[in-house]
């Protein structure tokens, strides 16, 4: 038995941890709190020489050893039991019990989750876990989405798919987030896994319609093809027509992010040939008339992305169009509605028949006003997830608060993402939502002005908050009523919301805000900081005070080497740390790299300035079992 069961700060079986929920929403971070039990996943170190139940028939000891039957039985029982263990947190714990449990757990794990594709090599992962059916991989850090990282940084799928092609012939599901995927990777994937069922690409890039065509034509068992917020290049290939004509098992086809036009006839045939289709999200090249035809073909849809939601250009003005209302009335199962990419607001009322059943509504591409919204939202009593543009103004948010008592998640995106305008939503909207939607768990709110009072109110009214992300778009902007920093507001959030695990701060913030976070944010796992803080103390408070911190991303804040060094005790417990445009120097980063050998410390320079400079532009560091990666581009240096 392992003699030391205390948590160790070396790594990391937690690399393999994964949430039970299979959804991956836009900025998902729903991994459970990191199991502080970690273990060095190099198998030799955990093998013990102990006797007892731990040793079983694979043990390399006495030549005349006779495997006692009870042990064999125990192991078989264990195997059967462990098959049912799905939570990866539990699995990691089980694998630490003893060598036998480690081995059996590895044999019975079917879902592999890798939170950072560079934390472990494909070879290591595939040799430990040999019967994987589903793989989830995450690559780039989130700030790369906002152009803070030069392209071609890495996170290539290629080595993974090559390794998996050899070891996981029965692979069924691949979920990727922020990875670089090429058409060749997709081709290899389609070739190698005959029973492939599910491909989900979130925020990925590097591939095009040719890759999609290969997947469509080769993967005969494909049930799910979800492309979410990925960049798909237009190779002039009509990929939809590559699905087999004889029928598909498609249950979910999501391609609203694909910017290329598609052949509608091929799509219509596909929908007609896919009797199991439940989720269909169209891109903006599908007009309302075409949508109508599809809805008539597929009345059993549960999730619908409506495409452009405007008539195609060749429909004459005033011409009697199809009856959209009855089309929606015919789709009685719709619970999730999105799309509206180029909406003509007059058509919005067509969705009325489904409003009463809607649990999720995404209007975040629809420039609609409060007047357009009110008649619709007043019917959405069951709504739990609502994404919208700030064009609905505070008034629209008040309408939401009045009706949507079941709301769990709200995201308000800016129609115009600039810093210098008045802004249609403010603390008024936030206050209204906090008073009306008491069950709120997750909020993302972009605004131009805010007050501490409203944020405090939300902290008190919505005790179930798990995710609080407030983005006051003007940098360093204080409470616009009192002129004070936003410290008290965010302080109240960490103090009152006992379930809070994800926090993003903005506005004028002093070190005091960070003191609050360090003091009260004991279960915070993800923290995003931008243009905040006064001194090193800010970062120190956080690193010393938040034991569960896993992901920390900071930009343009005055934190320096001293602050960085204060986190040495904790970095092995984190998935990553990102700091860009702060006050770090090469020396400080070197110190970290030397003190923590299992940490990969990447210094990323902007491409135009490759001279070795004392100042560090961007620091990205993460724990890894593999040491420096071998696909480093020239603008990255690993210390």
């Amino acid at each position, binding site marked *: 038995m392992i003699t030391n069961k205390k948590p160790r700060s070396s790594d990391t079986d937690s690399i393999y941890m994964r949430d039970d929920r299979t959804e991956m929403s836009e900025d998902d971070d729903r991994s459970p709190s990191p199991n502080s039990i970690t273990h060095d996943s190099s198998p030799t170190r955990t093998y013990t020489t102990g006797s007892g139940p731990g040793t079983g028939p694979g043990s390399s000891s006495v030549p005349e050893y006779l495997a006692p039957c009870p042990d064999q039985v125990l192991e078989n029982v264990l195997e059967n039991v462990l098959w049912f263990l799905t939570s990866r947190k539990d699995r990691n714990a089980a694998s630490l019990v003893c060598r036998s449990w480690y081995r059996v757990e590895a044999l019975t794990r079917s879902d592999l989750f890798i939170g950072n594709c560079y934390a472990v090599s494909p070879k290591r992962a595939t040799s430990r876990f040999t019967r994987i059916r589903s793989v989830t991989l995450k690559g780039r850090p989130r700030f790369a989405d906002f152009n803070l990282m030069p392209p071609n940084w890495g996170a290539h799928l290629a080595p993974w798919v090559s390794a998996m092609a050899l070891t996981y012939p029965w692979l069924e599901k691949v979920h990727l987030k922020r990875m670089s995927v090429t058409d060749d990777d997709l081709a290899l994937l389609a070739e190698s896994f005959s029973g492939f069922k599910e491909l989900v690409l979130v925020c990925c890039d590097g591939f*095009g319609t040719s890759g999609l065509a290969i997947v469509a034509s080769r993967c005969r068992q494909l049930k799910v093809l979800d492309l979410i917020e990925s960049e798909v*290049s237009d190779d*002039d290939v009509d990929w939809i027509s*590559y699905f087999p004509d004889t029928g598909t098992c498609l249950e979910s086809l999501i391609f609203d992010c694909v910017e290329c036009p598609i052949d509608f006839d091929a799509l219509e045939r596909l929908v007609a040939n896919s009797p199991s289709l439940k989720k269909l999200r169209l891109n903006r090249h599908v007009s309302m008339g075409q949508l109508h035809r599809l809805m008539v073909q597929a009345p059993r849809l549960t999730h619908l992305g409506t495409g452009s939601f405007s008539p195609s250009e060749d429909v004459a003005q005033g011409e009697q169009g199809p009856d959209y209302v009855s089309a929606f009335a015919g789709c009685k199962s719709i619970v999730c509605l999105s799309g509206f990419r180029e*909406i003509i607001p007059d058509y919005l009322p067509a969705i009325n028949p489904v409003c009463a059943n809607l649990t999720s509504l995404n209007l975040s591409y629809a420039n609609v006003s409060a007047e357009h919204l009110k008649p619709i939202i007043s019917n959405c009593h069951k709504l739990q997830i609502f994404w919208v543009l700030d064009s609905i103004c505070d008034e629209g948010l008040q309408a939401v608060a009045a009706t949507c008592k079941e709301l769990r998640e709200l995201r308000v995106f*800016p129609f115009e993402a600039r810093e210098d305008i008045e802004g249609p939503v403010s603390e008024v909207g936030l206050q209204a939502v906090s008073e009306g939607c008491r069950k709120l768990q997750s909020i993302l709110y972009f605004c131009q002005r805010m007050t501490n009072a409203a944020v405090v109110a939300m902290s008190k009214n919505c005790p179930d908050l798990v995710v609080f992300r407030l983005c006051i778009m003007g*940098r360093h902007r204080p409470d616009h009523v009192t002129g004070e920093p936003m410290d008290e507001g965010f302080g109240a959030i960490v103090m009152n919301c006992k379930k809070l695990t994800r926090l993003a701060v903005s506005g004028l913030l002093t070190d005091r805000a960070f003191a609050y976070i360090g003091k009260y944010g004991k279960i915070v796992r993800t923290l995003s900081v931008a243009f905040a803080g006064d001194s090193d103390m800010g970062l120190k408070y956080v690193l010393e005070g938040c034991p569960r911190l896993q992901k920390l991303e900071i930009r343009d804040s005055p934190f320096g080497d001293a602050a960085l060094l204060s986190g040495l005790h904790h970095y092995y417990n984190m998935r990553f740390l990102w700091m860009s*445009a702060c006050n770090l120097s090469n020396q400080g980063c070197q110190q970290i790299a030397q003190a923590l050998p299992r940490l990969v410390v990447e210094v990323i320079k902007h491409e135009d300035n490759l001279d070795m400079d004392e100042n560090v532009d961007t620091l990205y560091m993460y724990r890894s079992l593999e040491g420096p990666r071998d696909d480093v581009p020239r603008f990255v240096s690993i210390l």
Partner: protein
Amino acid sequence: MEGFSKNVEACPRLLDLIPKERELLGDREDERSSSEEKKLELRLGLPGEDWPLKNTRERHESQLNSFGYFTNGNNQTQKFPSSADNSHVWFNQQQKGQVAPPFLTFPSSTTPPTATAPQQSLPVMAKESSQPCCNKAVVELQQCAEKKAFSPPAPANTAVPNSSQKSLEFYHQFTADRRCLTAPGPVVGWPPIRSFRKNLASSSGSYSKPTVESLNKPVETCKKGLFVKINMEGVPIGRKVDLKAYDSYEKLSSAVDELFRGLLAAQIDSSSNGIMNKQEEGKAITGVLDGSGEYTLVYEDNEGDRMLVGDVPWHMFVSTVKRLRVLKSSEVSALSREWKHQAREGARELCEQIAMNFAVKILHRSLNERT
């Protein structure tokens, strides 16, 4: 102006009209293209940084440097070219004389141009920059380590265009504080929204289709290579080739063979019996340049026209190609008939145009003579 009119005094011979006309045309073109080039080649720099002149057109660099770019030299206030140097500053106008550019007025600029070789120089307004440049520059904070005080911009009697004003403001910010606390300008990645959410405002009001940034980049130019997409008929996967790696059509042709031979064989296999026959390498793809093979190489140029590969000199091809395609030769012959027709049409139109202009000129002259 003055120079121009001098030449017109004598009784114009018909033949004289043509060179002048071309000059005029040339001016406009040059102005346009160089103003476009201006946008392309100018970047934000810092006080004291030398302008990297990447364009290979003839320049007299030393002269340019002395003409007082706004930021040239940390300690200098902006220099106005002295009157004697006026002629060199304005692009394309040297031969004809001084035409004050719209964006900058000099205190005095009346001396006639000296006859010099045409200098298509960078304009003095060196700081025009497109928005992305600004963003990028603001983020590259390491460059502001040089905290030199930037001399104040335009004095009262100089009209400075807006973009330059904005860029000058950026410099103030750079030098003020590394963290750019007071920077009013936009910052990279802020607010933190993904790029596909950012174009919504541009389509508002008219409910027209949003101008989504094209995610298709058929040509990526980087310092290392010139990548163009290449698709082969019947093969769904496209590839990319780096044209800078080749210096002749033959090399390109053999590269095409290498790239697609295996893929084509796989495609043929898969469509016939579904089993990848790994032993067959597939037959070579040859004759793509001369029409003798089963496939022919065509390309799309920067105007969107499809052309046969091999007709123009290699370097010209490289500069205009946007995308390559390998088509079945049978299809191409249909295309080539179409091209010939188009070429004839185009040539005819051009001739008509020239004849028309010529006639108009003559008319004008004869009218002027009579009065």
